[in-house]
């Protein structure tokens, strides 16, 4: 929208605008407000004593990776016009469990494959329901959440299951060039997701379906395949988080993914992906996840309890939603 037009047909009325006036355009004011908000937030964070010390930076980089991978998956769902899923957190838990079981039984490599498959398929199935049957995405995700918890509870009485000693190789727990492997996986996921979004036909279809479902149908996009695809990928990125958690703790528990859905949607929105669909980017979600995780680490460093983290995430989401709504007004 910052394009300057000169002559031509739509140009009708396109004399370059007075720059001063353009700056007071409402959408811009709000997008500036958003940027300023984030900068101020980051300033507070970095001013927090101890934040820049090695240990807390490292813990930030690992925390953000788990939330971040879920957020990358959530980004695809949001862009596809299906708002969000409440089942991704549970999917993190269930992939962690299945991964540990499979590792104990089949070994590490096959365990990885099984873990990724389970997460992708579980979520993909929800996508199929939403895309093919045109079921309401929120309801489907809530139902899936209940089902996942119900089924896993029936099978695991103990709560936590542990990996047999020596099954998970130490090499996948370390750092590469001082950076935790988890964070590298997260960065790669963001790049891959961004490539899917911007360089593939599927990515374009995803934006079209999210922007206008009926128009996408009318130009011949297979809407159900596109929606299912979005959920399959969302499940894939989410299961990465589950597997990384299981590797990190050599164990799995259904509590691992609790509240990740909220942090993830917060990251997606802070990154500037529109809640209504059809607009957004995975790289911006990466930035959003960094902001959310930084806030959480800061709150911990300030000595505030877990509850404050939820409150903070809630406030941030609220602020972003208000900014988005006002920014799109004229």
């Amino acid at each position, binding site marked *: 929208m910052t394009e300057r037009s000169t002559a031509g047909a739509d*140009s*009708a009325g396109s004399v*370059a*605008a007075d720059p001063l006036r353009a700056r007071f*355009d409402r959408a811009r004011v709000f997008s500036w407000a958003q940027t300023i908000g984030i900068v101020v937030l980051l300033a507070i964070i970095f001013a927090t004593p101890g934040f820049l010390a090695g240990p807390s930076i490292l813990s930030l980089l690992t925390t953000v990776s788990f939330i971040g991978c879920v957020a990358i998956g959530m980004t695809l769902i949001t862009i596809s016009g299906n708002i969000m899923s409440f089942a991704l957190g549970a999917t993190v838990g269930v992939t962690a469990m299945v991964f540990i079981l499979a590792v104990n039984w089949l070994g590490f490599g096959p365990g990885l494959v099984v873990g990724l498959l389970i997460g992708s398929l579980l979520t993909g199935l929800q996508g199929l329901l939403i895309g093919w049957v045109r079921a309401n995405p929120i309801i489907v995700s809530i139902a899936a959440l209940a089902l996942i918890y119900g089924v896993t509870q029936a099978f695991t009485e103990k709560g936590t299951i542990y990996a047999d000693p020596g099954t998970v190789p130490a090499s996948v727990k370390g750092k590469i060039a001082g950076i935790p492997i988890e964070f590298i996986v997260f960065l790669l996921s963001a790049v891959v997701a961004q490539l899917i979004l911007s360089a593939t036909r599927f990515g374009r279809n995803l934006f079209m379906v999210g922007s206008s479902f009926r128009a996408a149908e009318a130009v*011949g996009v297979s809407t159900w395949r596109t929606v299912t695809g979005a959920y399959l990928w969302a499940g894939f990125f989410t299961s990465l988080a589950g597997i990384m958690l299981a590797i990190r703790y050599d164990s799995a528990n259904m509590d691992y993914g609790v509240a990740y859905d909220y942090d993830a949607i917060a990251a997606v929105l802070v990154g500037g992906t529109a809640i209504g669909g*059809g*607009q957004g980017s995975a790289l911006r979600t990466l930035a959003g996840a960094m902001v959310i995780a930084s806030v959480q680490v800061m709150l911990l460093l300030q000595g505030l309890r877990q509850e404050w983290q939820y409150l903070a995430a809630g406030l941030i989401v609220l602020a972003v939603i208000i900014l988005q709504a006002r920014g799109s007004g004229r």
Partner: protein
Amino acid sequence: MQEVLSVRGVSKAYPGVTALEDVSLSLRPGEIRAICGENGAGKSTFVKILMGIVQPDSGSIDINGQTQVVRGPQQAQSMGLGLVAQELSLAPHLSILDNIWLGSAEVPFLHRRASFRVRAKQALETLGLTDWDLDRPVSSLTVGQRQLIEIARLLARDARVLILDEPTATLSDADIERILGILKGLRTQGRSIIYITHRLGEVFELCDSITVLRNGQHVATQPVSETTREGLVEMMLGRSFEDMYPKAPAHADQSVRVVVEGLDVPGTLNKFSMTAPRGRIVCIAGQIGSGANMVTRALAGLVPSATGSVTVDGRPMRLGSVPHAVARNVLFVSDDRAAEGLFPQMTVLDNLIATRLDASARMGVLSWPALRRMAASLAERVGVDRHRLKSQSIALSGGNQQKLLFGRALASADAGVLLMNEPTRGIDVGARAEIYRIMRELCDLGSTLIMTSSDLEEVVGIADIVITLYRGNVVARYEDEAIAMSSILADITHPTQAVA
């Protein structure tokens, strides 16, 4: 006489675009004013400012002699202004009755009052819609029918200044005739009207005076009696222009490409059959509700309940699947650009290439340089400013959005079958001639065009073959010289011979 409305020096700029610059206008009671201008000239922006939907950067508005700051549509309504917007703005899941009163300042919180029902009914009746069920949901109506509801909505309210932004773009002549009659009646009651249209015939039939905008600037305001059609076009475009409809060349190859047999859509279309040759433009003419636009929708694969046999280039085509139709190079342009055409938040570029992704993807990976080139050349071809390829498509003017939908359908290099409902809806005279020229070009390359249009002048001007429909049944088929306005009009309104 005191002016009901007086606008002075209104300007509005969007980032990078000046939509209006120092435009003034004043309106007397009982005056019908046309606002004319190219696509993107600023007409819709101007009326949105009057209604408080868009806030101007500068300028002032006087209503009944008092300077007002119009903050929103509700306030504009309470000051006696009413608008039929260019884009349909109905809530599809609500009933006709609810939609007629939606957003009205008069309606109390609980509005199931009998008087509102009666007034809604009356408004529909003045439009000749006596048998409409007020409780029907709007989603079951066609685009033209929805447009009538928009107009009924304005009539049901008591506005002193009625503003209509392209109200007739999807309506058939009989409806338009009736609406023009109603508007003339309102004039005698002393109400004033601002009327925006690209159908210039309406300007000369209805309006007292014309204001012409070009590039967001006021060009002229003058009485209709002192204006000729040629003069008006010249003021709008800044150049004169002659031929609207290019003539069809005599074709050697007119082999049949599309054969439709016994196409049935329950409730709308009855055993419809036709053939469409290569290189020709087939128009299906019919009033709202005749099922004309259902033929193209069904062929495009958009109607799940459609049955019948269709062959394209000798091979049968399955109905009910758009991807299948697209794979056979059968493409569709919708008449409902807001709900079924545009990807509003996506860029102009994304909108133009929507149908070409397959062609420029290898193993699902897109080639952006090729797509960008394609979009740029398409934009050039249909007359959308190349500098706006990166703008959100919703920021384009209505007519320019329509050009995107048309441009998108010029998909592949191979000659395809184009199905178009109201392809030139809202496009200005100059650009429209260009679109007709492109249609002929496509024909020369061997494409087959099947279209519907509510504009009979357009049908007669561009069609090689016309098939008339009445209440879901074919009345007659005309070819070349046999195509005449009078017989088409007779067929679609009071058919004498009903062909089974």
